[in-house]
């Protein structure tokens, strides 16, 4: 059924429809077509030949598909193989997912250990840095000590020289000690040298205080202690009074 439409129709936007519909276009195409009969004939002959060849092949190999083509059975076979392969692949993927679920805690644990190891590694890095620094300091100290050791050796040599010089001085000191020497305002002499006897004269007259008459009352206090125990302890510790 043809669809009538008005020629020279002016649309609402002002355009005029003039010989531009589909049938106008078809008419223009058909009108300009000039069939090439020789070509058509050639192609028709080739088709005929090919059809005859296919039929001959079919008659030789039964249902077998011609070379370069799949038989329906082969296509079916290939599809089945492909489906099986796809199923197998999806099964493996599924198994893998299942295993992943079972391994989750282990993986979590491994991840934690990895974090710990990373931390440990960081610490070791820091330790290494500090040890390197400390090592530098120690090397400096060792260098200083080695320098001081040189000084010590030098001082030992000087001491040895001084000790050598001191030999025989002891006798000289002993000899000098026998001479009077003033020390802190007091004169010390050789203990063997005769010394002035210390004499103390009582400034009181012989009868001083003889006419005195005392009226004195003195209270006594008795302490509740055992003198004997203390004396025994003192004898153990001291024996007798020091002569000082």
């Amino acid at each position, binding site marked *: 059924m043809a669809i009538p439409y008005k020629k020279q129709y002016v649309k609402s936007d002002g355009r005029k429809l003039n010989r531009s519909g589909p049938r106008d276009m078809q008419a223009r195409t058909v009108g300009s077509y000039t069939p090439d009969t020789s070509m058509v004939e050639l192609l028709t002959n080739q088709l005929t030949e090919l059809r005859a060849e296919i039929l001959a092949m079919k008659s030789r190999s039964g249902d077998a598909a011609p070379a370069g083509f799949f038989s329906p059975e082969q296509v079916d076979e290939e599809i089945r193989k492909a489906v099986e392969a796809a199923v197998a692949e999806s099964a493996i993927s599924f198994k893998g997912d299942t295993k992943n679920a079972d391994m989750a805690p282990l993986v979590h644990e491994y991840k934690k250990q990895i974090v710990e190891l990373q931390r440990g590694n960081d610490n070791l890095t820091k330790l290494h840095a500090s040890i390197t620094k400390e090592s530098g300091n120690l090397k400096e100290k060792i260098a200083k000590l080695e320098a001081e050791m040189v000084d010590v050796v030098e001082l030992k040599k000087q001491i040895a020289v001084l000790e050598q010089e001191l030999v025989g001085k002891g006798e000289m000191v002993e000899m000098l000690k026998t001479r009077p020497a003033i020390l802190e305002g007091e004169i010390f002499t050789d203990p063997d040298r005769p010394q002035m006897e210390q004499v103390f004269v009582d400034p009181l007259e012989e009868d001083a205080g003889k006419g005195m008459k*005392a009226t004195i009352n003195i209270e006594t*206090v008795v302490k509740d202690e055992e003198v004997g125990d203390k004396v025994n*302890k003192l004898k153990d510790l001291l024996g*007798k009074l020091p002569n000082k």
Partner: protein
Amino acid sequence: MSKGVGLDIGTNMLVAATIGEEGKPVFKMQRDAFYRIVPKSEVNRNSIKKALTKRAFNFIEDSDGSFVVVGEEALETAIERNDVAKRPLRRGVISPKEKDSLPMLKLLIENLLGKGNGDTNLVYSVPAKPIDGIFDIVYHTEMMGGYLGQMGYRAQPVNEAFAIALSELLDEGLTGICLSFGAGMVNTAVIHQGDPLVEFSTTRAGDFIDIAAGNALDISPSLVQLEKESGVDLNNHETKIMEAVAVYYGSVIKYTLENVAFELIRRKKDLPIFREEVSMILSGGLTLAKGFSGKVRDVLSTIELPIKIGEIKKAGDPMTAVANGCLLAAQL
């Protein structure tokens, strides 16, 4: 056990120690201060004697007719007459310049001890050589020994601070530092296993406090002394006198301990190495003040000593510790 006698001859107090019947120590104390009253007439003499007897004062009638009030009452009498009591000892020792006092001293000692039988051991305390004054310790030691010999005793001197060690450091093996805060001086001794290594004295003590506080407040040192001996609280002063006394107490404690530190550092090479802390014993009349040990502790925390001080403790009886040490020494 022999019956030796101990005698502490202090500037302010004479303390005799003997052993009683039951083997317990017996102490007799007499303040060695005196005040002479010279009567103007025979009538006056009789009335003075009556008054002294009525007031139960201890006194001596001298051959020249005068009266010598002795002991505690001498201070009271001196204050009544706006005067100062005399002492036979000055800064812990007798002096030929005070020879008028010597008969009184002899009489006071004789009253304390009684006569010896010529064979009785007597150990008496003597001060150590002062580091801040010049006076003759040897003269004092020899004269006292002579007087005690005349009284019938075989007298032997012992250092005052060492006597404290004999009394108070027996449980510490006679190792420690002893300080005797007396009236005339402060005696110090460092003892190691019974060996007195360092002995010295300083001359700022109780009398210094009395004189300094008296000068500061323009009052008699004897009055300051009586007030002081009625009881001092170094952390709580109720009167102006007590306030002044507390101030000078602080000065004496600081001066003494700084000098102890100075002497110990100076004599460091003579001292053994004290590996452990040693006790410090405080004795003498000044230590009776409340808060005394605390003040010593405070000052010690500010100074460095070559010896570590452990316990700081007062002697069992600060007034009799020296005499007790002398008594124990007299038994050896």
